[in-house]
C-alpha cells in the first residue's frame, strides 16, 4: 500500500496527523512522506496535548524543522556538498506523496505498543505515534534530534510514562 495511510483503523485525530504529514512532505517538495514529516505534523498543532508536550520539551514545529534542516546540511557537508537554497529547488508538484519506510515503521511500532499495553478496543493516539517515531535508532529523526542536543531515549521514556507504556521496549522490534 503506497498511497494510503498505513493502518485502516485510524481515528480521526490520527488521520488528521497523517494528512498534515503529507502536507509537510509536499511543502518540502518531496514525493515520500517519512517519519520526520509525521513528527513535524505532531509538533505543528499546539492545540493538541502531544503538540504541547513537544513544545515543553523544546520541540515546537520551528525547532523540529530547524533540527531536520541541520541534519540535511551536515549530511551533505559530510560528502562535500553544499546545500542549495530552497528557492532554487521550487517546482510544480501535483502528485500526492506516498508513504515511506520510516513512517510505516513508526505507525507499526505505535500500533504494536498500543495493542500490547491497552485492554479492549484500542486505537492509536498521537502519543503512541510519537513513541513509535522515537523508537527509530537510526536515520533522519534520531540524527536530527542528536544534532539538536535532544536525548531521544529520555524523551521516549517521557512519552512512555505519559501514556502508560512503561515496558514499551518489548513492543519495539
Amino acid at each position: 500500500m503506497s498511497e494510503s495511510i498505513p493502518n485502516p483503523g485510524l481515528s480521526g485525530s490520527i488521520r488528521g496527523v497523517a494528512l498534515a504529514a503529507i502536507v509537510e512532505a509536499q511543502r518540502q517538495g518531496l514525493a515520500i512522506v517519512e517519519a520526520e514529516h509525521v513528527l513535524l505534523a505532531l509538533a505543528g498543532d499546539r492545540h493538541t496535548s502531544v503538540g504541547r508536550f513537544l513544545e515543553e520539551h523544546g520541540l515546537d514545529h520551528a525547532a523540529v524543522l530547524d533540527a531536520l534542516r541541520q541534519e540535511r546540511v551536515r549530511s551533505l557537508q559530510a560528502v562535500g556538498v553544499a546545500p542549495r537554497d530552497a528557492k532554487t529547488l521550487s517546482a510544480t508538484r501535483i502528485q500526492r506523496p506516498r508513504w515511506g519506510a520510516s513512517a510505516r515503521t513508526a505507525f507499526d511500532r505505535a500500533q504494536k505498543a498500543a495493542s500490547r499495553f491497552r485492554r479492549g478496543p484500542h486505537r492509536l493516539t498521537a502519543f503512541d505515534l510519537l513513541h513509535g517515531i522515537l523508537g527509530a535508532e537510526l536515520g533522519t529523526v534520531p540524527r536530527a534530534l542528536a544534532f539538536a542536543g535532544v536525548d531521544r531515549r529520555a524523551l521516549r521514556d517521557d512519552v512512555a510514562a505519559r501514556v502508560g507504556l512503561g515496558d514499551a521496549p518489548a513492543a519495539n522490534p
Partner: protein
Amino acid sequence: MVARMPPESQEPIGDVADDLAAVVALRELADQLEDAAVEQALRSGWGWGQVAEALGVTRQAVHKKHLRRLEQAGIDLRRRNV
C-alpha cells in the same frame, strides 16, 4: 553453516551512519533538483529531447516522468519536438 550474531546497536551519528545519511540527503536533493531543473528548462524553451540528452536518459523516460506535472504547471508544451 556459520552462526550469525545479532547485530550490535549502532549510533545514528558516526562515519558509516554519516555516509548512509549522505546517500539519503543526496537522493532527496537530486529528486528536488531534477524537478526544478526540468521545469526551468521547459519554461526556457528547451525541447524534451534536449532535456533528455542533458540528463542522459531517453526522451520517453523524461516525458513519462514530468509531462503531467508540467502540463499542470501551465507550460505550453506544444512544438517541443527538439
